[in-house]
């Protein structure tokens, strides 16, 4: 496969597709062979915009030859879609969260191993240059061994007037499966799989059964003896722009990052911004993390060496999400 372009089918043409598709079209090793989108208007616009063949359903793509697929649909569809692609021997990139049931996610991972295909979940923040730097600081214990961590994600995207979408009902809805999975993934990215998880609070602000903010504690003691607090709120009216903040405490230092800067206080005081890191990418749109993420996926595909570390963590995220979802307070 190393000398041929990777034929890629995109499934789902919503908002996140607009971030991925230009990267795919621009990529020197990728050929986008089709976009599957059931909504007529979106299908029409995407077809006109990207000059790529569009399809109403997967059934109409049976004749297409492709190597990899990008599943960019709502999470309740991820399991069945990913399963059928893996069983057809296709490499799969699936947007976060992997599925809505950790057992299903584990099954997908097992299948990917059996069929020897690359399987990757789109947790984009772990590919962000500054959060990668935080990971390096933590792993190399540059400012000492971490003891506690707080990761928060706040935004002001859901109000009482927000439209009803798949984010507004059923399992997979709410802040937990949107912001929550990102924050849990970052905690796992930094400190490994949690040994236990305790949900501290869950608030349903607008609709019953839809969690709009929550907090939880993750015990990472198996790997590095860190207690991680996570706080998510997508209805915080004081927030101008959604963002993630990390605060890690070691014995002598406090390390803070907001995605633009890292500030260290304590015995040593330093502060540096993303502008001082290596941020060069082959193609930039909306942040280096999108290109870094895609490069990592396709590198594994081209090299023929599937790397499941990302998918293993994504399964762990789903296990943690399920525990928080099911815990009765």
């Amino acid at each position, binding site marked *: 496969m190393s000398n041929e372009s990777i034929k890629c089918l995109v499934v789902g043409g*919503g908002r996140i597709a607009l971030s991925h598709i230009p990267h795919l079209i621009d990529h020197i090793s990728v050929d986008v062979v089709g976009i599957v989108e059931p909504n007529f*208007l979106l299908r029409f616009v995407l077809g006109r915009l990207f000059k790529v063949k569009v399809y109403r359903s997967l059934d109409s793509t049976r004749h297409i030859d492709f190597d990899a697929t990008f599943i960019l649909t709502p999470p309740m569809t991820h399991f069945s879609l990913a399963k059928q692609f893996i069983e057809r021997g296709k490499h799969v990139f699936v947007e976060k969260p992997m599925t809505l049931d950790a057992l299903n996610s584990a099954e997908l991972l097992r299948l990917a191993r059996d069929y020897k295909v690359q399987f990757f979940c789109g947790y984009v923040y772990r590919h962000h240059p500054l959060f990668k730097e935080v990971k390096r600081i933590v792993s190399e214990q540059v400012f000492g061994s971490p003891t506690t961590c707080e990761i928060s994600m706040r935004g002001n995207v859901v109000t009482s007037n927000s439209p009803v979408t798949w984010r507004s009902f059923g399992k997979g809805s709410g802040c937990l499966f949107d912001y929550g999975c990102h924050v849990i993934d970052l905690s796992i990215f930094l400190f490994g799989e949690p040994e236990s998880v305790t949900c501290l609070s869950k608030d349903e602000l607008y609709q019953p059964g839809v969690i709009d903010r929550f907090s939880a504690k993750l015990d990472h003691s198996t790997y590095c003896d860190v207690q991680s607090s996570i706080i998510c709120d997508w209805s915080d009216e004081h927030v*101008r722009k959604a963002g993630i903040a990390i605060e890690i405490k070691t014995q002598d230092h406090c390390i803070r990052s907001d995605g633009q*800067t890292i500030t260290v206080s304590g015995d040593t005081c330093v502060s540096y*911004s993303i*502008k*001082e890191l290596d941020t060069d990418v082959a193609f930039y749109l909306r942040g280096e993390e999108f290109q870094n993420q895609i490069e990592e996926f396709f590198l594994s595909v081209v090299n023929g060496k599937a790397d499941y570390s990302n998918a293993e963590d994504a399964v762990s995220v789903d296990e943690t999400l399920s525990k928080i979802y099911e815990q009765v307070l």
Partner: protein
Amino acid sequence: MKIYFGDNQFLGVNHSAGKGDDYLSKYETAEDVAGTLRGAWEVGIRDFAFTVNAKTIKAINLVKTDCPFNLHPSLPYAHRINDLVLDKGLAGAILFKIREFGFFNLFNAGLAALLNKNRKILKLLVLSELDGIPMENVRSIGLLNIATDFILGSKRRDLLEDFYFVVAKDFNCKPIFYTMNFGKLADSIWGEGLLDCAIVFNYNKNSFRTNPSLNCVREAVERYRERETIAMSLFSGSQAQEVCDVLAEIPSISGVLFGSSSRENIKSNYMLLDSYRN
């Protein structure tokens, strides 16, 4: 070398969460923005490059008699589009924009778009974004990097060409393209014969967002030394001497775009650039 005053500080973008919020508080009203614009005018700046949004447009109108800047609006304002998509969903946002244009205009433009003639609909889009700006002072119209790079990545050079001709012919202005992928865009625009336009790109000592590398950007500036190149983010983490050193690496540069909120910084940055060009 032309000096452009930019507006990132008014919008609180490209700053850390705390700093961005501080800037937004500082520039809560149009009068706050107007105050800084008056300061920029007083130190000698004559060109103002900004993202189209209601507050900045109001500020421009507040100062237009005393400080008749050459205006360089750029579009689209990503936050407004993002809010629209969040509020209505992607399909709903498309329908909303369609309704905004009015049935007759849209029917004509839509019919042309169906025949792959996008300029009518593009003209409507640009016109709707420029609403309220004193057009007599507008010298150029820019396409921000979120749109330029989206189109570039999607390999739709024809849409960049459509923007070029709509701005040049329908608005009688110079097209400006903002990008984070300078070499690639320059090859696509200037390399393919669209010569009478400017490209704005990052250039700084830290190689921050000078994709795919600072060397490649430097080579592209040299390759297109006859064209209009405008560097931004030049002051990113740099001292005065370092800015001059960085500028010396790209002697053919046509302009520099910088933004600042304090009158002292605006003055010192302008003086530095002014002395460099002289």
